[in-house]
């Protein structure tokens, strides 16, 4: 199966703690073959303005053991420039988690579309506010 669609999700936190409690939910998605992790990094902006990035490899034994073996071909896609740029855009005392993942669940659908000479020409997440408004 060719590589499924790759997506970048950034979760922003109003604090600069390391939110490793998200890792079990990611693990669940990977174990069920819903996604494959292409990249994952935590970026923290300290109150003094320092930017720190924490790699999966540095997250700590507990979290690491939960994801171990699930990210074998882990080469990453984000560059040091991306991390610096994201760090610059953070307010002090806040942080974010950037995850790049393959939408493994979508790969067979996209492949079937391609075999039928179809092409995915539009693929966008509708902001929650719009859905709420339409469903009100």
């Amino acid at each position: 199966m060719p590589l499924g669609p790759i997506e970048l999700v950034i979760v922003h936190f109003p604090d600069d703690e390391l939110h490793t409690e998200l890792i079990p939910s990611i693990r669940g998605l990977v174990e069920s073959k819903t996604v494959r992790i292409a990249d994952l990094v935590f970026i923290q902006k300290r109150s003094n303005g320092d930017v720190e990035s924490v790699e999966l490899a540095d997250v700590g034994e507990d979290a690491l053991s939960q994801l171990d073996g699930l990210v074998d071909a882990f080469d990453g896609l984000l560059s040091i420039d991306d991390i610096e740029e994201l760090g610059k855009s953070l307010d002090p005392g806040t942080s974010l988690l950037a995850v790049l993942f393959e939408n493994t669940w979508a790969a067979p659908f996209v492949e079937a579309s391609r075999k039928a000479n179809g092409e995915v020409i539009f693929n966008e997440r509708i902001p929650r506010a719009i859905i709420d408004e339409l469903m009100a």
Partner: protein
Amino acid sequence: MRRPARAGRPSLMGTMARTAVIAGTATAVSGKVAAGQQAKAAQQQTTAAAQQAVFDSQAQLTELQNQVASMQTQQAAAAAPSAPPAGDLIAQLERLGQLKAAGILSDAEFEAAKARLLAG
């Protein structure tokens, strides 16, 4: 666990931003991070909005500089200087005005860029 090589590889978001500017679609990721952060104080809101405006303006400035440069190349090659279509000119003047309002261009730079555009 393997550690990804972050240095020496091209910027993912930079590549996305370049494509977005060419395609005229949404601004790049870091702009969204700045804009999406919840501000606790009005001061922070103003700062975030100003950062977003600066980011937008810088992308527009680069695009405008490229357009001006390519216009100048075309004009140098032509026997007689030709004015760009009026519609483009107005859009470019408006963009210059936005950049000046955002503080990206000084009054002098604005006047100089405007004069270059109007000279055709």
